[in-house]
């Protein structure tokens, strides 16, 4: 004989259609909280203006390689705005919107990609992790933070983000396992933007969803339209609340699209069709939210013009702060290596100070 001893389903959440209409009468409170929606909209637009400027800085030799966040604004703001300050964020390297919502400054981002470690000593929560280039390792650091909070009995939650590519790595799967085994206050977000540099989602694996990887570890797992800030924020809030109340971890797959190249060192026209990108632009999150706000009478051209001016001014100020920062000192290559400088390194430092000017 045989019998089904386990079965699962993955729910997909979406409240706002690509053309900005509510597709359900039963919507989260945020759908009618226009002050909050306008706040999020402003942050999304500022993030996009910042992103465009950062790419321009790279193209003109004023910034190093930069990873764009174009198209991810709703997902990122949903993550960042659903968290409390005492919660802990473990990003990969393009979640600027989430970090801006947590108080990280635009100039911090520029400093990091501008080749200066001081970018990692960012404004915002001092316990948040810095940008993480080794793919998916951040998921385990978030799990470790969550374990620390749980052991100390603190009502804090850790949130980590990984990509569709990163979801193939063992670190991500081990984080799911840890979250399940220790019932951690953790939210693991798979930001599925369809592309891991040149490798499409379909080549990562043949599973119907990436969210279902969480099911394998025994975690509640779901999928959400990551370009719909109302839905993305709703599922984040639910997952964070459950984690905070001791209910354990959640895996959320946010469906979005990387409208940019992987980084400024990449050229996506080498491997993907323009038609696909054109189709993705019709799903993008900022126009979607604007159409909804305008249709509800909560946004207009005048506000849009004001916002554009405000965003440009904020970005220009950040660029000014970035370009005005003096180069790091020779000492800084040595002084943060250890709490106390070892003897031999002190000798190397002394010599460097003499030889390098």
């Amino acid at each position, binding site marked *: 004989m045989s019998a089904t001893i386990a079965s699962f389903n993955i729910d997909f959440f979406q409240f706002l259609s690509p053309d900005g209409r509510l597709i359900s009468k039963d919507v989260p409170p945020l759908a009618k909280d226009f002050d909050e929606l306008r706040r999020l909209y402003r942050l999304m637009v500022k993030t996009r203006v910042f992103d465009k400027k950062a790419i321009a800085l790279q193209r003109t030799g004023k910034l190093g390689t930069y990873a764009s966040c174009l198209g991810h604004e709703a997902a990122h703001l949903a993550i960042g705005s659903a968290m409390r300050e005492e919660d*802990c964020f*473990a990003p990969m390297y393009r979640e600027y919107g989430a970090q801006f919502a947590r108080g990280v400054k635009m100039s911090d981002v520029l400093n990091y990609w501008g080749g200066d*470690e*001081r970018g*990692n*000593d*960012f404004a915002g929560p*001092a*316990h948040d*992790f*810095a940008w993480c*280039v*080794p793919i998916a*390792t951040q*998921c*385990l*650091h*978030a*799990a*470790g*933070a*969550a*374990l*620390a*909070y749980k*052991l100390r009995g603190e009502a804090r939650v*850790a949130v980590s983000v990984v990509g569709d590519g990163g979801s193939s790595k*063992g*670190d991500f799967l*081990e*984080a799911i*396992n*840890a979250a399940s*085994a*220790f019932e951690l206050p953790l939210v693991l977000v798979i930001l599925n933007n369809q592309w891991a540099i040149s490798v499409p989602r379909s080549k990562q694996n043949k599973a119907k969803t990436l969210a279902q990887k969480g099911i394998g570890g025994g975690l509640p797992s779901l999928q959400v339209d990551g370009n719909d800030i109302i839905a993305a924020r709703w599922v984040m809030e639910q997952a964070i609340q459950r984690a905070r109340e001791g209910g354990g971890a959640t895996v959320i797959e946010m469906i979005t699209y990387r409208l940019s190249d992987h980084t400024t060192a990449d050229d996506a026209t080498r491997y993907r069709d323009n038609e696909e990108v054109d189709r993705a632009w019709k799903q993008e999150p900022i126009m979607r939210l604007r159409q909804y706000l305008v249709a509800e009478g909560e946004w207009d051209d005048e506000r849009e013009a004001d916002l554009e001016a405000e965003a440009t001014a904020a970005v220009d100020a950040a660029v000014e702060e970035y370009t005005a920062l003096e180069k790091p000192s020779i000492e*800084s290559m040595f002084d*943060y*290596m*250890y*709490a106390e400088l*070892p*003897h*031999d*390194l002190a000798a190397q430092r002394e010599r460097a100070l003499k030889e390098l000017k």
Partner: protein
Amino acid sequence: MANVAMVEAVTMALAWEMAQDDSVVVLGEDVGINGGVFRATAGLAQRFGNERVIDTPLAETMIAGLSIGMATQGMKPVAEAQFMGFIYAMVDHMICHAARMRHRTRGRLSCPMVLRAPFGGGIHAPEHHSESTEAIFAHMPGLRVVIPSSPARAYGLLLASIRDPDPVLFLEPKRIYRLNKEEVEDNGEDLPLDVCFVLRDGTDITLVTWGAMVKETLETADKLAEQGISAEVIDVATISPLDMDTIIESVEKTGRCVIVHEAARMCGVGAEIAAGLADAGLYHLHAPVKRVTGYDSVMPLYKMEMKYMPSVGRILNAVNEVMEVS
């Protein structure tokens, strides 16, 4: 005063610090009720509970990643890699994160963790259980690599490693886990990191070593004494950052040096020590510096492992070659 073997001294140090400092937790595979496969954590779960002595799922990368995450948030995790042969799944986290956490965040975050791992050959273990690959970690800026060679030094150096505000690899030579017992006072006193220990004073030659090889090196010194050769024996203990000053000071006195380590020769820590002597001790040397090491071949399975590892005979040969140079 307790008469303990080295592995028991490890347990004593863990218990002392866990009792003193609530932020210290132990985690790893089988470290809980089983007390670790070598019993290094025996009794800790029973005394401190499962929340502070954490049996993890069987996933080494997870152990390293969790430890880093906990360490950045104010805990002091002491993780165990069950054998050094399984540590490579942890290397990404140790090198890309633990080693550079303080530096890359300009001190905003730090990583006060210890990763303990039994290492080295000589106990007839299966494949991948006997290698000595400490040099991989010694090469990485930001990591401390500490290797005890006796119960007293295991106790004092492990306490110092847990208290250190930066990440420490604490590599335990398992061949000497239960070799000799020693009186160790369980008083919470640590020993200094980043310094060599001069175990035996001598005037004719300096023998530099660490870990399990301290045993063969001291035995060699006894034999040399019978021949009328006075050997100074240095236990490096912290192989990174390296205390060259103590070694150079000794060679200034003896004029001769043989370095002994179980690890393969190529890019071993012995090479760094020899280079340090060439740089700062050359004019005190009467003879070439020799290394007695494992071969640059794969650590054999156990039938041949003792042939691979430096023996008293091989060390004596090297010393005699060095002593012949007038």
